[in-house]
């Protein structure tokens, strides 16, 4: 299982999903209408490293984080 957590203002509890790549995860998350706009503007981290390759394989135990637009300071 892969754990998916939603950071900052995304008001959603973490999910445990059986997916083997970010591509598959993308399809799974599109089923949640409340995530629709967040998927378009959020960055993605796998085990706390920002990733940019959607074909990346995921292993059981991996932790994926969605990071919506930021504004520190």
């Amino acid at each position, binding site marked *: 299982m892969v754990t998916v957590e939603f*950071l900052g203002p995304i008001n959603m509890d973490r999910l445990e999903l059986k997916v083997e790549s*970010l591509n598959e995860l*993308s399809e799974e998350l599109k089923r949640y209408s409340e995530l629709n706009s967040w998927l*378009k503007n959020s*960055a993605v981290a796998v085990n706390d490293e920002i990733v940019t390759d*959607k074909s990346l394989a995921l292993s059981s135990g991996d932790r994926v984080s969605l990071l*919506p637009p930021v*504004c*520190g*300071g």
Partner: protein
Amino acid sequence: MSLELYKGSLNVSEILDRWYSDTKNSNYGAYIPFIGTVRDESGIDGLSFDIYRPILEKWFSKWQERAKELGAEVRMAHSEGDVLLHESSYISAVFSPKRRVALELIDEFVEDFKANAPIWKYDLKNGERLYAEDRSTAINGSGLLS
């Protein structure tokens, strides 16, 4: 690590003084701080912040390495939770042997901080905590899962 996170507003003078004392014998010719203070605007009572520490620490480590290559040092302090009007939520500083390096580095550092540090800002207004979406910036590479 020279990354300090505090609940609530920062004690600006304590932090700046301590950083000065820590570094004054390190032969840096320049100490350039940037202090972010909450402004009274749009009827807000203050700001509030969420931070995701693991990625913030990695982001900051890369900047420390970058500064070290230039013979300089970066430090940063930030608030978590609520910070009221005219209090400060953010300090960053560059220490460098050379003024030009310090001036350029503080500019690049603060701009990258605004664009990529995993911190989320909320307006405190009428008893609510409202995500400051219109002032927020999508991190490089956003939209990967859309």
